């Protein structure tokens, strides 16, 4: 996961993305070739009379597809926090679902949940609404981001 800061057009923006080391093409090649090989082997045995290999190969291909699909869906996940005029905007993309939350900059508070034994969670809270952010960051980076955001909000 990475975070990028920029100030183009808005006063403050931070974007964090997943660290994906494979390309879409690479994933398709790997999962596709595995599934194809499995099915070819199973088809060969089915031709020799051992057809019960086929359903197991099929189930495995489903599992491979689900893993591939999960990677594809989450490939473009990101989270951005920006301060635009009087608003703090938190935009997240999680598995293809994009959500945008706008909170008043002057009322927004940054809070950190530090329940012992759990991962830290950071929230923006205003007017009874609470929006979690920093889900793609590690604990230390979450706290760092929370501090920076606090400084910006009070500045």
């Amino acid at each position: 996961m990475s975070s990028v800061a920029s100030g183009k057009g808005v006063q403050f923006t931070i974007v964090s993305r997943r660290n994906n080391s494979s390309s879409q093409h690479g994933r398709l090649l790997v999962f596709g070739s595995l599934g194809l090989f499995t099915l070819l082997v199973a088809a060969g045995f089915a031709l020799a009379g051992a057809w019960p290999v086929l359903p197991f190969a099929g189930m495995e291909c489903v599992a491979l597809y689900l893993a591939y699909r999960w990677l594809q869906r989450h490939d473009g996940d990101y989270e951005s926090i920006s301060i635009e005029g009087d608003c703090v905007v938190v935009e997240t993309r999680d598995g293809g679902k994009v959500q945008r939350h706008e909170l008043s900059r002057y009322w927004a508070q940054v809070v950190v949940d530090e329940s012992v034994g759990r991962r830290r969670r950071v929230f923006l809270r205003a007017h009874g609404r609470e929006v979690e952010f920093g889900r793609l960051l590690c604990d230390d980076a979450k706290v760092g981001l929370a501090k920076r955001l606090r400084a910006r909000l009070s500045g």
Partner: protein
Amino acid sequence: MEAVHEHDHSHDHPSGIMRWVKTTNHKDIGTMYLWFSFAMFMVGGVMALILRAELFQPGLQVVEPEFFNQMTTLHGLIMVFGAIMPAFVGFANWQIPMMIGAPDMAFPRLNNWSFWLLPPAATLLVLSMFVPGGAAGVGWTMYAPLTVQQGMGMDLLIFAVHILGMSSILGSINIITTILNMRAPGMTMMKMPLFVWTWLITAYLLVAAMPVLAGAVTMTLTDRHFGTNFFNAAGGGDPVLFQHIFWFFGHPEVYIIAIPAFGVVSQVIPAFSRKPLFGYASMVYATASIAILSFLVWAHHMYTVGMPVEAQLYYMFATMLIAVPTGVKVFNWVATMWRGSLTFETPMLFALGFLFLFTIGGFTGLVLSLTPVDVQLHDTYYVVAHFHYVMVAGALFSAFAGVYFWLPKWIGKMYDETLGKWHFWLSIIFFNVTFFVQHFLGLAGMPRRIPDYSLQFTDFNMISSIGAFGFGLSQLLFLYILIKAIRSGEKAPEKPWEGADTLEWTHLPTPAPYHSFETPPTVK
């Protein structure tokens, strides 16, 4: 909830039994795999000692022949599926994320399920001894039509194999996804440590081979209970078809066990030679070649079924071909040591033990690849000696090397070096006492899987049994070394092995924190 302030909570994690049941942390799961594997190694080892006690002298002294067959079957299955495979999955869980700079496995919950499928499967296998008729006595190969004649123990065995296979498939998909998608920036495929490469290739093999095994045991089940005749010749089925299906899985399975062992040794030898691995790219290609060839040679296990001579020739030459990439690997390990600044701590000793003994196992494999020779040696103790050189001296010694090598990183404490060396020397001596003489027994014609034998085989069997008990007791020393290291080992230095240069040694403290690489490192 509190205001923003900074504390290092990286060591916060749940404790108690539920930590282990619910954990999704790759290090916890790796630890569970390794302890499970050791427990199964002990169970399978006791079964082996029952076999060797019976074989100490001719005649029947200790167990009934039926029970002997059950022990043979369970020993093989437990050692292959319960001990060796989970041991290397344990290494994979601990090491792969740390070696590629990832925070965890790609699917942490799936990882938890993959592990927790194992205990029920192992329980089914062990419980099968106590059902009416006892455990299946068919050998780990589960050949038909003998499987049709077994009691309820066979059904438990089939279910256990299904569960173990499911665990392997889920684990493999997780490993493939992790390696492909979670490498740190700059960690290109050809910069990955060889251990990671070997696991990527192993996971491919598992995914490709496991459905075949699942199909084979399902057909066995339907032949037993649902009136099908896939393998039952009396009903028009073909028992040889089972052998083809089983060995299409079974031969890659050998490499599923051996290839991660190659990976461990490829990390240990350069570290103690203080040199980079010689011929990295050729090692990667050789490993991939071995994996591909492993799917093309299965029928060399079946020369005696009456296959056409053309098929025998094909399988013979194809099998001999595997010696080429394997030779590349062996020579690269040797070249890595050449003019290196060698030291011989316990991990290196076990890696060298692996190198010598696995090479012997490879050579005897080459002998068995020759059809005319194999027809004579088929199902003799020569085969038993061969595969124990590959499985025990190959895979197990490599696993020991890996445990001693990475233990300081895992627990932050050093093991007792003197005791470690004792463990190595006792293991290698007793291993050879046990199994080297079995070559002679096989060459003299002693068949495998029999509880009684002709008088002429007595001396070598006695030697072998003495060696087996010595080897078994030596492993209790390993347990003692582990417990001693965990409870009262000296604090490990940050980098106990001067030549170790993978990310877990260069970028992480010792012991590795509970959560590591949450921000990926940049690899140059």
